């Protein structure tokens, strides 16, 4: 059992780690809620790209045709990425840029993969979901914003550990789930905080930890580009720059011939961070529950359409990709989304009640922490 002194220390840790991060965690929970249902919300807002049903064996349009059409819509731009969603191979999302190494002024065109008809221009930097996503990922502050939220996530994990340690001294005299509603609001909310905190503990820890991992995503990708990608494209160092990339369809076909049972996740055009100035970077994914989350990079010479290298992703990117569904909750169908949302709302109650308990305690006599920390236990006698 913890000594009074130890309880006081843990309580100090719990109070301050959570106080610092609570406002941001509330923001993340509130903005995360619509993100769980981003497809459904896009559907309601009419911003979701919808492709018509066609027989499964309808022939596919050539990717070169898809590109030609996308470029026609935005003259002066060039290809940056072409991607497909995991569960919908009827649409190609073509991202266009001014220069492949810059994220400014990006445009996107959705093209039907069968008919080669344009389906719409998904806005990349406006709209409700864009605001939610930006607040959730980086507070509109780019990499520093991501890392800041990641640091807040670390504090959250400290708060979860210290909160778990404190669960025992606070619950010593109570049955599981007991909420003393006949006492002061403070006692009632303390009990609710403990109850809801302990039932969501594992979920909140997993979502928090995978969120922290995600905050490092950009840096992990940069490290991978500086090490493995640099090695893969080293033989092309010093070659004159490519005037015009060759056939995209040829590059994708070559990559798929290497792994016929895989699907295209995205293709990076020459000059982006996911390729080289001389290569298309074709990123394939598997088709079963686990492998669909992982990516296999294939580098294809953009002039000749020949595969020049393909490697497995390093462990840290594999870990990142595997951790993502555990953060998004997008892997178990609609019931999982609903559970994710309910857990998210319960978490908001835990955060808000924690904040309330702190405010109430401060308003009461500024007595030593130890006395107050045991008050809850005593009150149950």
């Amino acid at each position: 059992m913890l000594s009074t002194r130890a309880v006081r220390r843990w309580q100090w840790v719990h109070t301050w780690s959570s106080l610092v991060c609570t406002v941001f965690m509330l923001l993340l929970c509130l903005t995360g809620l619509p993100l769980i249902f981003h497809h459904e919300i896009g559907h309601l807002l009419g911003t979701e790209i919808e492709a018509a049903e066609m027989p499964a064996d309808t022939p596919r349009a050539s990717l070169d045709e898809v590109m030609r059409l996308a470029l026609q819509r935005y003259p002066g731009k060039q290809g940056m990425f072409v991607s497909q969603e995991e569960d919908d191979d009827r649409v190609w999302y073509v991202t266009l840029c001014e220069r492949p190494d810059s994220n400014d002024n990006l445009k996107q065109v959705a093209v039907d993969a069968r008919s080669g008809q344009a389906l719409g221009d998904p806005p990349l930097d406006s709209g409700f979901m864009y605001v939610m996503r930006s607040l959730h990922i980086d507070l509109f502050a780019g990499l520093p914003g991501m890392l800041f939220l990641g640091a807040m996530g670390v504090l959250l994990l400290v708060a979860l550990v210290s909160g778990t340690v404190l669960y025992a001294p606070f619950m010593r005299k109570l049955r599981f789930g007991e909420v003393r509603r006949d006492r002061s609001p403070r006692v009632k909310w303390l009990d609710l905080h403990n109850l809801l905190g302990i039932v969501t503990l594992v979920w909140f820890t997993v979502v928090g930890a995978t969120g922290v991992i995600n905050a490092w995503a950009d840096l992990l990708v940069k490290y991978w580009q500086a090490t493995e990608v640099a090695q893969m494209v080293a033989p092309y160092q010093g070659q004159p720059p490519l005037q015009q990339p060759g056939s995209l369809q040829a590059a994708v076909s070559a990559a798929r011939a290497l792994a016929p049972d895989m699907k295209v996740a995205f293709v990076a055009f020459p000059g982006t961070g996911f390729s080289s100035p001389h290569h298309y970077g074709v990123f394939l994914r598997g088709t079963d529950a686990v492998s669909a989350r992982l990516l296999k990079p294939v580098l294809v010479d953009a002039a000749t359409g020949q595969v020049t290298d393909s490697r497995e992703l390093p462990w840290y990117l594999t870990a990142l990709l595997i951790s993502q569904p555990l953060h998004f909750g997008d892997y178990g169908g609609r019931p999982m989304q609903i559970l994710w949302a309910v857990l998210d709302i319960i978490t908001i109650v835990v955060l808000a009640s924690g904040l309330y308990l702190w405010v109430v305690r401060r308003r009461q006599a500024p007595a030593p922490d130890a006395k107050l920390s045991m008050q809850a236990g005593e009150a149950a006698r």
Partner: protein
Amino acid sequence: MRRHLWRLPILLGSLTAVGLLSGLLGDGAWDAVAWLGLGVPVAAGLWYGLRR
């Protein structure tokens, strides 16, 4: 400390963990296990939290 203070928290935490992993590993029955694993702790929280 009462010995069974941690019994239900550990049970609910384990269910959550099994649920989270099960959904990752496969579809169909795996997903059903995931719904159950996450659903029981949620139900427990709502039951004890909302009852009068």
